[in-house]
């Protein structure tokens, strides 16, 4: 029989070493991703990400399945190429763009979390940077993830790139294209979300903004008989990142204005839009008051 002990249940000090600001930022990144994907939240919050995942990953899996069945098929001819996928999954990705940033940005202002965050080791800038990284990673799950599924699937089906060096090249292209597909939309959605604490307004603003600029620019540049400069395409907020991703994948959309627009303009457009919306968010957050 051992000696009887009554343990002290009092306050315990934390004697360990505190992690640095970088770790604080990373835990905010993880938190943002969990929040947007509905992890640790009720089922209601999981519906939206599940639908989007279902659309993009199921499509990718079906493409791969077809490749297995029709051993001889040429993915390019069949319209199943990496670039084709990037273009057609654009609308599912748009759902995510319109939903993710408002979910992780606007709610903090409405729910009072922002005042707790700013009283933590984060600053306005590091807070925003962590949130942006979170949104970027969330978008990567739908811009890069399915591409990798395609790449590995096609390779296993025997229709993928032949040889290790080709595979590595395709892999690098997929990563680059996925990142490009997520980068400018991250800036845009965070920029728009930073001006309102209302999630619905931000989501509507992003969706309407993307769709409307796509509609108008597409309408302007593709209407027959109209003689409009292809460079107007850089104003198509929705398609500018997608088209650049498609080109990184080694393909190109063969419709106006893209068939006439040089890749340099696309790179520039992506960079400039990213900077503009990034600056918009940064300035908005330097000024936002945290009474709540």
């Amino acid at each position, binding site marked *: 029989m051992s000696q009887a002990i009554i343990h002290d249940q009092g306050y315990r000090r934390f004697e360990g070493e505190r992690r640095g600001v970088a770790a604080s930022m990373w835990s905010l990144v993880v938190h943002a991703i969990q929040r947007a994907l509905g992890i640790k939240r009720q089922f209601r919050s999981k519906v939206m990400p599940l639908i989007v995942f279902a659309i993009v990953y199921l499509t990718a899996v079906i493409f791969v399945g077809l490749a297995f069945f029709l051993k001889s098929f040429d993915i390019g001819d069949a319209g199943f190429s990496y670039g084709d996928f990037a273009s057609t999954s654009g609308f599912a990705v748009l759902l995510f763009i319109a939903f993710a940033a408002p979910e992780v940005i606007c709610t903090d202002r409405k729910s009072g979390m922002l005042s707790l965050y700013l009283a933590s080791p984060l600053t306005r800038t590091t807070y925003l940077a962590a949130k942006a990284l979170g949104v970027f990673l969330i978008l990567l799950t739908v811009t890069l993830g399915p591409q990798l599924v395609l790449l590995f699937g096609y390779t296993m089906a025997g229709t993928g790139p032949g040889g290790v060096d080709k595979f590595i090249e395709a892999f690098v292209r997929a990563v680059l294209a996925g990142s490009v597909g997520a980068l400018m939309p991250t800036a845009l959605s965070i920029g728009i979300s930073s001006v309102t604490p209302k999630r*619905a307004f931000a989501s509507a603003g992003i969706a*309407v903004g993307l769709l*409307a600029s796509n*509609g*108008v620019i597409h309408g*302007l540049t593709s209407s027959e*008989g109209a003689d*409009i400069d292809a460079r107007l395409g850089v104003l198509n907020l929705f398609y500018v990142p997608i088209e650049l991703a498609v080109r990184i994948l080694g393909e190109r959309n063969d419709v106006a204005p893209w068939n006439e627009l040089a890749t340099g303009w696309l790179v520039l457009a992506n960079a400039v839009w990213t900077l503009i919306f990034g600056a918009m968010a940064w300035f908005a957050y330097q000024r936002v008051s945290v009474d709540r």
Partner: protein
Amino acid sequence: MATPVTTESYGPTSKAATMAVFGLFLRELATRARILVLSSLGLLMVLLGLVARFSDDGEEIELTMLIALGLGIIAPIISLVMASATIGERRADQSLVYLWLRPIPFWTIAVGAGAAAITVAMPIVLVSLGLSVLVSGEYQLFVPALIAGFLAVVGYTGIFLPLGALLKRSFLVGLGYILIWESLLSQLGNFFEQLSILSYSASIVVNATDVVTSSGGRSTPSSTVIPPLVLLGGIAITVRFLNRREID
């Protein structure tokens, strides 16, 4: 000792009450940010007029854009933003009590709010539709576009005013209504089409041209009468809400 209370003491005249409510909401709605954002939406409409101008089928293109974008998206979204931000917003932030607890009939609140929403939404919608037509050069569409825009704002306000009062997520529901009900279900056939504001406003412009389209199909008289009736119905529902519901 207190002096007696008389039961004659009552509130302001209905006109004064309506005007005061109208003035309040007008100022709340007409913020620079809101007008700028919504006007930029209208600017798209004007830019699309350019497309029509440079096309061979100018009239058909402008007509389609008037219906699909102008009457189908811009007018309802602007009406939604305005109408749901009146009573609905005040209910959501619990400040509605400062109107509800006044000795005024409830209809003055509903009418004042509806009038303010229409007053702010109307110029943005009419200017963008009108400018679009002028830019496109299809001048014969000018007057019908204005009338259609007017009726669209009136009708949509009639829907979104009570929607805002009744529902918490009125903005999202309203957006869903515009994008799903009005745009998709109304293409399911004649019966469903009658249930969309768009079919009435679109008919005004369609009936003014010889173009054959899938939109429209309502007669001009019914198109003129139904949207105002919808507004009246919407106000009635709002009054009923104010009468029956509990106010925070």
